[in-house]
């Protein structure tokens, strides 16, 4: 059912593959809740996490997922200086090939860099943990699992993705995933933070937060990427909070049972009201983190099965 040899993005996934991955993740989530988190599906495999961009949460989540499945996990912090010397990416691939990892988790500040690395490594499943402004597939998958568990379905929902969409790989992966699963997606934000051609992506674009939130089932807030603001996308944080920050008053326009999501880390008082973020009836932010580990376990498990199958085929061919 799941035929991929890498998880580079949502784009190449078929709806059935998404469902298969979420189903498996669901079982891992249940096991973890029942206190039976540990498994040995990845025993004997080496997982290397390579983060060319600072990350705490995603890296920890992947590390935990790998350890729970019994993989040997190693994390390499690639300094910002090695990124500037772009050629190290290919050199890194060569180095990695010599180390023979089985699973490679990569985050990189350049769009497409993880694809490039995946082309250059051999006999190894690559997972994209975020590349530039392009994709962050495991985030979209964990969001999808969270929605499915809370809403009971992952289709025919109205989802508003709000905030800094232009700089967000989370938004791109979510637009793709929610679209593939036949949901209605709205993008809400100031026009300076909406990517050009957004209307061609099969979404509705709203510049007014209240209109954009009207009757939606899911409100997905994005972090205002302060470090990416290389000049004047918004006049000030306080004006942004006033017009686009999520608070109870704005949320009142969404469906009564609408849930609030955020990929974290949050800027409380910039894109989301702190009290609202902590409201366990509306906010599913903690569940997202929990599902993150489950989804990553499922993704690595499925990729490892395909990797082992491919190795088996090669070994059989070698015998003949």
């Amino acid at each position, binding site marked *: 059912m799941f035929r991929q040899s890498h998880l580079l993005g949502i784009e190449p996934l078929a709806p059935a593959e998404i469902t298969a991955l979420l189903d498996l993740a669901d079982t891992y989530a249940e096991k973890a809740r029942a206190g039976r988190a540990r498994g040995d599906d990845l025993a004997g495999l080496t997982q290397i996490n390579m983060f060319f961009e600072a990350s705490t949460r995603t890296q920890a989540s992947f590390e935990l997922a790998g350890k729970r499945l019994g993989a040997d996990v190693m994390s390499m912090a690639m300094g910002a200086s090695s990124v500037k010397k*772009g050629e190290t990416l290919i050199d890194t691939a060569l180095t990695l090939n010599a180390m023979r990892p089985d699973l490679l988790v990569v985050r990189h500040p*350049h769009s*497409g860099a993880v*694809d*490039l690395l995946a082309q250059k490594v051999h006999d190894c499943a690559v997972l994209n943990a975020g*590349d530039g402004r*392009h994709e962050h597939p495991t985030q979209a998958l964990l969001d999808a699992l969270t929605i499915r568990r809370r809403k009971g379905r992952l289709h025919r929902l109205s989802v508003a993705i709000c905030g800094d969409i232009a700089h967000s*790989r989370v938004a791109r992966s979510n637009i793709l995933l929610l679209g593939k699963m036949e949901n209605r997606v709205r993008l809400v934000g100031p026009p300076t933070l909406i990517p050009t*051609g957004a209307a061609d*992506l099969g979404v509705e674009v709203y510049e007014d937060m209240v209109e954009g939130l009207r009757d939606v089932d899911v409100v997905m807030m994005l972090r205002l990427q302060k470090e990416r603001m290389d000049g004047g996308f918004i006049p000030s944080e306080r004006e942004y909070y006033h017009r686009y920050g999520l608070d109870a008053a704005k949320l009142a326009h969404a469906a009564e049972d609408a849930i609030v999501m955020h990929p974290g880390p949050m800027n409380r008082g910039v894109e989301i009201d702190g009290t609202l973020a902590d409201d366990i009836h509306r906010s599913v932010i903690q569940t997202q983190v929990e599902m993150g580990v489950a989804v990553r376990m499922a993704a690595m498990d499925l990729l490892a099965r395909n990797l082992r199958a491919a190795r088996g085929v090669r070994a059989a061919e070698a015998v003949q």
Partner: protein
Amino acid sequence: MAETVFTNARLIDPEAGEERRGALLVRDGAIAAVGDVAIPEGATVIDCRGACLAPGIVDLGVQVGEPGARHKESFRSAGRAAAAGGVTTIVTRADTGPPIDTPETLEFIRRRAAEDAPVNVLPMAALTKGRAGAEMTEIGFLKDAGAVAFSDGFRVVENTRVLSRALTYARSCRALVVSHVQDPGLSHGAVTTAGKFASLKGLPAVTPMAERMALDRDIALIEMTGAACHFDQITTARALPALERAKRNGLDVSAGVSVHHLTLNEFDVGDYRTFFKLTPPLRSEDDRMAVVEAVASGLIDVIGSFHTPQDEESKRLPFEAAASGAVGLQTLLPAALRLVHSGALGLPTLFRALSLNPARRLGLPCGRLAEGAPADLVLFDPDKPFVLDRFTLKSKSLNTPFDGARMQGVVLGTWVAGRRVTED
């Protein structure tokens, strides 16, 4: 007296805008007769067997790695690529390392080219010292030393005062300025054209409007200074009305476009294929079609390859970090023939843009099939199909976007001043 006759040729005459069957006589490196030619005694006869004979291509805006990056392209390798591609005159860019901004560096280019390149090489010089956009170069000396035009390449002179003075001074020297039109503020850091594709791929993008804005600015300065200016690449539909107006108002302006922008669009980048990373970035299909039409109508005068050799190391990087540009000397003709095969252009119109117009703009006698013109010729079969294998290119760098592409049109021979420069 050395005489050669090309018989049984399909003569492509861009000047007359027609093609006809006939023969062509070359005497002492120049065209001596065209059409019905009696074969003189002792003349070498080349039977063209119905293949096309056209004036050799004048490729305006070629980058050669000398000085500074000979590992990417030398005059020898560029010259061989040009000969294999039917290009008889290379007009080189000044964006070398160091840039060609003094008569001394220009002299170096001319000497190296004369030693090593089998085709004509004419250098452009930088418009400002160090291509820094602050002070103009010695335009007078450089022109005397053989610079055919002045350009900072793909670097835009941002300071309008500097540019207006350089244009004014260039006019007094009767020098042609070649300008790259791209608003520097909007295009800073961009590697794709803004739109759905760029948004999906998460790449920094520039609005196509940036080209028109810079064109408008330059046109105003040309109107003010009276300088002669060639816009190296016009690639968007929105820039065309401004260009048309400037021509109608009698300004001394002309425009070019790269063959890549005529035959490829933004979607060809696909999964971050860096061989498709160009300056300016590839455009939408609507823009591509509009620009093809502008070439057909003559609004855009020149088609070039904008040959930019890059080695594997500078291309095998994440898209944003990879070097920009493609080699094109050897693929210019077969790529441009796609426009003929698609019915967008006739062969005489194509050679008006490849040979006649660039030669005229630079005041060169070539580019024509006329008595007295230099015998710079290309003989080619426009229909013969092939699949391009980049490892067969003569260039030192193999960064072509056409690797593995099905193409039609094979060069059978190239002659510069009557001398064959292609291997048999």
